[in-house]
């Protein structure tokens, strides 16, 4: 049985006390415990940002990649050894800004990984510039006169990109978030979990209080049906007095790995590479 304690590192997180990232870390650990995943079979791939520091403080394998590049690394790890549980984490700048292309294409590709975005609507680690999810008018170091463009909508983008599991959590509700991550990991395919994550140092708008007042759970809305993409798309634009969290959309479709006869029997990493016979290829060239 995997325990919470064995996932906990000696080093303590260096995030600002009160940062929403703590909630995400706890939820992720909870989920791994709940699913009883052996810790050496979990790989966490991170981008760069405050969010990217997460894998340092959870006792699993980790690849800390470049800013915006967690997804290509994570997908390839999964393809190379699909017995692993691969979880990518990153920030909103990381995933929805510099990493946009990887984000969109990973979703349609449907490699079976889980992607947790620490969406604090700010660039945390670089000390407070606007992010792709910062709200219009938001004042920051890089937008002292107010941000001009409206934010990206990750949920809508996911729906437009054939993402097979689309959810939003809130770092202030660890229990609910844990459950979402559990479902995300269990889901066969690419699972996006966008997490509303208060940054107490640089985002004075989207605070705990801000979200406490607004979030409500989709699963508590009986009229909601997470298999209806059109409905999900409509919900994706709900952001104001009320902000939905929970599972927006889910569908079952083949994963990318499912369509690779190359690894139908043996994971790539287990295949013997000694003495590969290329004589027929040489023959073809003669």
């Amino acid at each position, binding site marked *: 049985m995997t325990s919470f304690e064995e996932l906990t590192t000696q*080093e303590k997180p260096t995030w600002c006390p009160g940062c929403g990232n703590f909630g995400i870390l706890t939820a992720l650990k909870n989920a791994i415990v709940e699913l009883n995943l052996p810790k050496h079979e979990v790989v966490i791939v991170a981008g760069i940002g405050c969010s990217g520091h997460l894998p340092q403080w959870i006792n699993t*394998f980790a690849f800390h990649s470049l800013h915006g590049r967690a997804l*290509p*690394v994570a997908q390839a790890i999964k393809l190379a050894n699909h017995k692993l549980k691969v979880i990518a984490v990153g920030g909103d700048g990381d995933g929805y800004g510099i990493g946009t292309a*990887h984000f969109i294409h990973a979703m349609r590709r449907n490699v079976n990984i889980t992607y947790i975005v620490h969406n604090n609507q700010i660039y945390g680690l670089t000390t407070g510039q606007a992010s792709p999810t910062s709200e219009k008018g938001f004042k920051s170091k890089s937008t002292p006169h107010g941000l001009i463009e409206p934010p990206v909508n990750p949920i809508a983008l996911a729906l437009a990109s054939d993402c097979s599991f689309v959810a939003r959590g809130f770092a202030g509700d660890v229990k609910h978030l844990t459950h979402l991550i559990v479902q995300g990991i269990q889901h066969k395919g690419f699972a996006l979990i966008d997490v509303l994550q208060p940054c107490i140092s640089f985002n004075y708008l989207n605070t705990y209080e801000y979200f406490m007042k607004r979030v409500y759970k989709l699963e508590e809305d009986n009229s909601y049906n997470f298999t209806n993409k059109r409905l999900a798309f409509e919900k994706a634009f709900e952001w104001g007095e009320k902000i939905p969290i929970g599972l927006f959309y889910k569908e079952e479709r083949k994963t990318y790995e499912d369509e690779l006869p190359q690894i139908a029997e043996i994971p790539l990493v287990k295949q013997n590479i000694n003495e*590969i016979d290329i004589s027929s290829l040489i023959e073809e060239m*003669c």
Partner: protein
Amino acid sequence: MTEFSWKIGGEAGYGIMTTGFIFGKSFVRAGFFAFDINEYPSLIRGGHNTYTVRVSEEPIFSHTKNINILVALNDFAFEKHKNEVKKGGFIIYDTDTFNINSKPKDVNILPIPLTTLATEKGGQNIMRNNVALGASFALTNVDIKFLYEVINDVFKEKKGENIASTNIEAAKAGYEFVQKNFSNLKKIEFTHNRKEKRMYINGNEAIALGAIKAGCKFYAAYPMTPASSILHYLALKEYDYNIIVKQTEDEISAIHMAIGASFAGVRAMTGTSGGGFALMTEALGLAAITETPVVVVLAQRPGPSTGMPTHTEQSDLRFVLHASNGEFPRVVIAPGDVSECFYETFNAFNIAEKYQLPVIILTDKFLAESHATTDPFFLEGLKIDRGMMLNKGQPEAKDYKRYENTITGISFRALPSQENVIFKAATDEHNEYGRLEEDPVNRILQMDKRFRKLKVLEGEIVGTKFYGVEDAEITIIGWGSTKGPILEALKILAKKGMRANYLQIVYLMPFPTNMVKVVLEDAKKKILVENNKTAQLGGLIKEMTGIDVDYKILKYDGRPFIPEEIVAKIEEVLTFDKF
């Protein structure tokens, strides 16, 4: 020794590439040596394409200046190339397409209704290329059956038996037309016909084969001329060899995927040209600091920017040596011919894993796309060496340090899913466990550890090759694809009674400083040959050894060197030198 060169020219998009390849391969089948070079613009149809094949009884290493047979599919090709044809040579042209007004002297003109002959027996227009092949074959004494065989091989696979035999019919029609109408022409006569089995292969295919043999199981790439055919070839073989071949959304993703797969324990590669490599530069550093093996192929083309996408140049040497921020060890290998493409790609994977660092294979369009004739690759000696892979319990797994500071700089490598060796691969500076650490002492320790690997590697490789006589008047220095033309130039120089030799630099990093010094300090006249404008290798030699070359022969018009051109420049230099 009999040899000849054959060129076909016409509009892009009309199968010239396949035709040229078939021509060369047929002669290789017949036991001869062939070498080809193509030239085409960055367009799909239209524009002018040529494909030149040189055929010889003896080993050859590049194309050469003039041609013996020209096949002109259109007016433009005729006008543009007619004067390249040597005295006594032949020009075949399609009388269905154009008429000629003037013709060069001392050349045999063969007006042939290529299109008519192709379509007569139910073939399509495009099959006139095969008519031309047959007609060309008829100008030699080589058995036409080799041509039929190769046509069959090429078309049967791709288009089915029927198409294959119509193509053969077309070739036959051309062959017979010449036999009948131009029986009086003096043919190109080959005297022997060894019949050894040899490969006809280009640099990209050789790299792909090297990678497959090395156990590359993951290839991620974004298409880019002239690297794309590696992607195509591996994709074709992905099921046969259990390789995951992934075309990605961009080059950034491609290299990160290769790094990810490698981190998970699979040998992985990516390939691109200079513009795509530019997008990969950041990730090179990621591979370096996380000590993740990765092999990157860069097939150069003329820059800057999009430049001349379908032409050749050797202008990314300094770029690959210094690409990415910060300082870290990397290996840069520049194969000079197709067999080096194969063997050095195989080596690249071993080096990448033994030393846990990025290895770059630097080729160019000329090497990537030109087919050469070579003995079947010798596979016996090729041993996979995965380096210091951590097997369970060794070292004491309880205190596993992924980035342990060892004497060699190389640390044991564990893979995800191995128990008790959980570690963090970190893009930030880190301590021996992979944890972020900004302490100055640790920093120096990790920097020195990483760089030590290169020192160890230096002892293991031979970075240069040496050709020609020992006591030479002239020492030519080059790297990469200039090898073929230089070797041919050596032959010509020898015939002219000049004592010349050639130092080929295969490993650009770690730079074989000592070898280069030893050779160049003794060299009488050091002549640098590079397919670029700024003599990048020249600068590197100066930096590493302090030695100035005496002359630089540089070419940066997007075309590879022709042996005769090198010889002429050398003669120019020597003459000038007498004054």
